[in-house]
């Protein structure tokens, strides 16, 4: 459990800064604090700073921060309490014309959409979640939205993919709604950048799971983790399931695979994100693309919608386990015949004994 406190644009005097919003969610545990920072200055960025003190604070030098040129304009104090920091930058949206319906994005790319050039609306807060929507100039009525939710306890969403989350993680749901594609056979990719200080997230691990109870027909969990020798209980992670949905309130049939490319070192995260520039002096960045759709499945144009959900957190990534219903059904199902077999066996034994002893007087 953690106590959450939400603050929009901490330290900014007047109602709203001219461009971009900075959301600060502080999750205070018994002896540590998680600072979740979500910023729309440039490309949307989520930064998670883990400190070992329950009294660490955030300092923002707003004049420098808004110039997007100076590192150190946003600090978590005291600096010595920082255990670890990780960020995810939603940097670009790519569109390609899948002429042959192979869902293999290698060529026929349209010019990419840079998310830092989008026009972002103000952050829309409700409780511990925030909605950020933006659009490129050519989007007409469509928009790209990101919904951040920070949690104070373990649980899962009601809507698919129903990822399990812990108090140490936050969830971002991304969706592209109502955008006019540049070709009828267009499919999309999302470029993600994982930025870290000492231990950048550099490899994606595929975990197979027999448990698809919460995300029907998905048997894999993907985790973007630090290098093997740097993985420990307190390191950061990104976690998602390889599925996206073609409807806003999806059912299982709306699911379509979300495939990812291997992560590669990149160098330009601080260019696109104001938050990265302000917090990191020498950020290490790895990027990958998540592509949506499968050969033969409907194109973006069919519903003009896709959504995809990812967790950013620290500690051990949450893992699904069997629900009580499954355990009870198996226990009752297997137990009853066993008990019956036992009872029946005893019954038969007793009868045999009884009939054997009733013969004895005759002897």
């Amino acid at each position, binding site marked *: 459990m953690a106590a959450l406190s939400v603050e929009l644009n901490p330290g900014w005097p007047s109602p709203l800064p001219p461009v971009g919003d900075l959301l600060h969610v502080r999750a205070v545990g018994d002896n540590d604090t998680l600072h979740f920072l979500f910023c729309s200055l440039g490309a949307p960025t989520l930064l998670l700073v883990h400190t070992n003190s329950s009294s660490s604070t955030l300092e923002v030098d707003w004049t420098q921060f808004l110039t997007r040129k100076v590192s150190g304009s946003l600090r978590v104090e005291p600096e010595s309490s920082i255990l670890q920091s990780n960020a995810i930058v939603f940097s670009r949206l790519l569109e390609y014309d899948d002429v042959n319906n192979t869902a293999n994005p290698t060529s026929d790319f349209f010019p990419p959409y840079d998310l830092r050039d989008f026009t972002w609306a103000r952050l829309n807060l409700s409780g511990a979640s925030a909605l950020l929507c933006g659009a490129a100039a050519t989007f007409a009525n469509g928009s790209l939205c990101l919904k951040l939710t920070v949690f104070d306890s373990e649980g899962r969403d009601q809507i698919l993919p129903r990822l399990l989350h812990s108090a140490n993680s936050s969830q971002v749901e991304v969706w592209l709604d109502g955008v006019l594609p540049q070709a009828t056979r267009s499919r999309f990719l999302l470029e993600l950048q994982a930025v870290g200080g000492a231990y950048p997230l550099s490899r994606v691990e595929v975990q*197979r799971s*027999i*448990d*698809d*109870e*919460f*995300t*029907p*027909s*998905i*048997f894999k969990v993907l985790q973007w983790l630090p290098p093997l020798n740097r993985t420990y209980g307190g390191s950061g992670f990104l976690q998602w399931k390889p599925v996206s949905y073609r409807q806003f309130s999806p*059912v*299982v*049939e709306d699911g379509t695979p979300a495939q990812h490319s291997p992560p590669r070192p990149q160098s330009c995260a601080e260019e696109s994100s104001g938050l990265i520039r302000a917090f990191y002096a020498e950020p290490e960045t790895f990027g990958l693309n998540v592509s949506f759709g499968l050969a033969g499945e409907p194109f973006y144009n069919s519903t003009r919608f896709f959504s995809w959900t990812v967790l950013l957190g620290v500690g051990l990534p949450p893992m699904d386990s*069997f629900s009580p*219903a*499954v355990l009870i*059904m*198996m226990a*009752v*199902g*297997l137990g*009853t*015949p066993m008990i*019956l*077999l036992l009872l*029946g066996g005893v*019954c*038969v034994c007793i*009868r045999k004994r009884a009939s054997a002893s009733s013969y004895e007087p005759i002897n």
Partner: protein
Amino acid sequence: MADYEERQSLLGDEDKGRQAAEAAGGPGRPLPAICDPGHLLHRIVVLVFMCFLGFGSYFCYDNPAALQTQVIQDLDLNTAKFMQLYAWYSWPNVVLCFFGGFLLDRVFGIRLGTIIFSLFVCVGQVIFATGALVNRFWLMEVGRFVFGIGGESLAVAQNTYAVNWFKGKELNLVFGLQLSMARIGSTVNMNIMGWVYSKVAALVGTPGHTALGASLMIAGVTCLFSLTCALVLGFLDKRAEKILNKEQGKTGEVIKLTDVKDFPFTLWLIFFICVGYYVAIFPFIGLGQVFFIEKFNFSPAEARAVNSIVYIISAPASPVLGFMVDRTGKNVIWVMVAVITTLAAHMMLAFTFWNPWIAMSLLGVSYSLLACALWPMVAFVVPEHQLGTAYGFMQSIQNLGLALIAMAAGAILDTRGYLFLEVFFCVCICVALIAVVMLYFVDYLKGGDLNMSAADRAKLLKESTSDAE
């Protein structure tokens, strides 16, 4: 069992048959073995006709599946409408084959009943094909309905015939052979109908509803063939009855509909096993293909192959397993082995990433074993004059279970996923397992002969025969 001699099998044992044959044919002129109803050779001839009796209906039942794309294209349907062709077959049979079985026992008798049901199958297929020919979908549905009236009840008749001729002899083997015939029928259909359609389309000039109707008419030839088998079987059965003076053994008892509530407890247990078991097999195979793709990363072709291995295995395995059950007896133990193996296979699929070929092959073997060992048991717990009704009832509630569980399975899959679905199937199997365990003890305490070894069974038969003489 007290009423054993009353319902002793149609033929008695071989010596008795020979004597009777001699009596009929005059002294000193024994019939050649192949014509002697008491002889194994003659029974084999009967068996051949018995197996092909169901061939037509099994072949034509899956015609829509074999021609799915063609049917949908030629008649301009969607998948849901297409599935109605199966619904019109299955739903009425939730009640119809119960009445079919009852009519067999009470009104028509086995011989006439079989011929009538075969006729229904033929007429139904012709209506179905005509509907395609004139491009009237409702007529096709009517055809499937009529076809269904005949089809399932014909299976009941087939079971009853098998018991009449083979009880106390090779009954388990015969049930195994009938299962494998059913599998062969639908496999041949799956592989040949597409080819037939393309040939007909080339002949007609264009693919379309005419070509479809003509191909279905050609498929209907198998139904005619089965009707011929029904006629021949009727003749042979009548002849055997005359030669063996079978009428003597009849007690004149007739079944009343109310007898159903007096069915022995063991029969209800057998029904439970049947429903609990089959609902975990057929709906699973229906949904299996996507499961193998998603969970085990199979290609669609591979997934289709592993999904169909159950049926492919059952064709050769069931006669072999039937023979084995005949040799050893102990039907209840074999059923228990089959149920436990199936449970293990389902648990493997649910809780491990082991190669599904293992689990599906196990499923195929246990499915065949169950069919050989379970269905013949009915003949040991109900008197002969109720046999048709009992088999009809069993088929009916199996259909009901399948229809309901198939819908439930789809809903579970959409909301809770494959793991939960598999767990649900495991629970169904566990219900069957509970019923088997109870059956074992009830039979044991009643001193019944369900679980007798083959040797004991032969001894019992001999005693009762000598008592009768």
